[in-house]
């Protein structure tokens, strides 16, 4: 992807579409990244999830258990999958960095499941 332009300012994304500089993030940038991953426009529920993920990452330095997110934003279980199909899209829109060992796979393009570094 490389780059998006928000309010005339060029913002760098890495090769997989993750925001490179954390300080670049704001709601405008989020909306623009959302467009890049075909989630547009962002609605209230999606924004709640994204804000929660940002706070979670700040505190825990990790990817959250998805139903933990739903519980804390008071949305039904599976909310991240329902709102974003691929939960990694939410992470990208939240402007958070690619994490080692966290990726989602789908064999049908509809149901995305996390495959982590298991033991």
């Amino acid at each position, binding site marked *: 992807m490389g780059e998006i332009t928000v309010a005339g300012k060029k913002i760098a994304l890495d090769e997989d579409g993750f925001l490179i500089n954390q300080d670049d993030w704001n709601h405008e940038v989020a909306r623009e990244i959302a467009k890049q991953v075909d989630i547009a426009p962002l609605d209230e529920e999606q924004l709640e999830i994204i804000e929660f993920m940002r706070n979670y990452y700040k505190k*825990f*330095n*990790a990817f959250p*258990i*998805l*139903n*933990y997110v739903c*519980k804390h934003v008071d949305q*039904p*279980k*599976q909310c991240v999958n329902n709102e974003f199909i691929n939960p990694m899209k939410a992470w990208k829109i939240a402007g958070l960095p690619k*994490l*080692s*060992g*966290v*990726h989602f*796979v789908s*064999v*049908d393009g509809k*149901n995305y*499941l*996390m*495959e*982590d*570094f*298991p*033991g």
Partner: protein
Amino acid sequence: MAIVKVDKLAKSVFQGPSLMTGSYPTKDWMEVPAVFKPGNFAYPAKKEKVEYMNSQQGLSFPNAREWWPEDDDWKLPENWKEIIINGLKDRLDKFRSLKIFMDCCVRCGACADKCHFFLGTGDPKNMPVLRAELLRSVYRNDFTLAGKLLGKMAGAREMTVGVLKEWFMYAYQCTECRRCSVFCPYGIDQAEITMMMREMLHLVGVGINWILEPASNSNRTGNHMGLQPHTFKDNVDFLVDDVENLTGVRVEPTFNRKGAEILFITPSADVFAEPGLYTAMGYLILFHAIGLDYTWSTYASEGGNFGLFTNNQTMKKLNAKMYAEAKRLGVKYIIGGECGHMWRVLHQYMDTMNGPADFLEVPKSPITSTVFDNAASTKMIHISEFTADLIKNNKLNIDKSRNDHVYATWHDSCNTSRGMGLLEEPRYILDNVVNNWVDMPENAIREKTFCCGSGTGLNTDEIMEIRMRGGLPRANAVKYVHERYGVNTLGCVCAIDRATLTSLMNYWVPEVTVAGLTELVGNSLVLEGEQRQELDEGLRTLV
């Protein structure tokens, strides 16, 4: 990575040409080069990960660099050949088994069609005998008289860059599952041959990221996911809340508690993502039900050990935290959770690598007083041994009907079945916690179990097609019991399995879900003071 439609791939596996060459073999295998293309190789380890590992005490991961399998030039160190040959010499001197395995194969071919990767790819170099020949040919050339004199006539060939690339291709299309070894009249352990090839590739800076990154995380934070202590605890606490929601019972796990009787260690994936989370809820419920005096550790917070898939030194270093933490906390012994390769390390190597653990006691169940003499030396027992003993002594209050939504079959995870002989305990547990379960056909279970196709760190999505091909024999057996008996759940005791079999089932047999054994145990337990809701899908029910 896009993957072809299921019916097309199924046809191609059975009728199509070799995946490697796109044709039926016409040339001698030595003349067919390994060709890398998107989808047939796992991404190389990132330079900074290799550098990090190399900087750690006791570890050696030299020649860190950027390189790419599709490129002609892998930027190998100038004296790469010398490094490999010396590496082979060292290992032949150190491991008598390797020397024997190099010498004793008579190429009978009994192993050839026993490999899931051969069955799934049709690539002759995935026949275990031929995969071993990739190394054996070099061994003959440099270390045997016949090879030195007769060369190719004696099956010898010189080590070249092409051979090295072939090693990389096929050492990473082997999951070290050892099904072939069951059928080998000499008992040649193909897993050890693959391990040696991978070790030697690391000497010249060739490895894959999906293995080295969790290994480095584990070295840094204690677990593959890189979870810090407060995150690990917070994740378990979330599961405690979920258990309370479902059962009305508040379980109270402790962390890093000195003086606990037992230390519990499981793969970090169990507290990180579905479906492992449900298995972890099962542990919490089970231990609460029997009032076990145990503790989790946020340091020894990983059962898995990706060192097993890189080299001996890494395996030893990553494993050391188990005994170290047991000693620090002053526990009597260790119970280990549901993991496959973890148990190969514990069962076969831990005692001699990092033992003797003479500060621990021979495991004795505080509930039944059963002494686990089988673990007299390692001082660590498998959760299934522990649970089966509880059931046998009638210490659990089980309501089987709670699992009536389940019609199960049993996947013997390679490392626990072939590696440690854990064949009866899981079946005994299933007999007692579910009303409906059935075994797959006999050539696909117990010692002859088929691999998930994604073990030994090959569970990365850039090689999804190869994984689905390698997993086909397993999926095929599941499909059989699904169609015949209506099986809807594939049980297992392995974290890699739980993640990768889920993808495999979604692809080949989407009607079947994957569950850890302790998830089914936990769901069947009647707890004191419970206020259990109607749980149509057991611990997975959305409430």
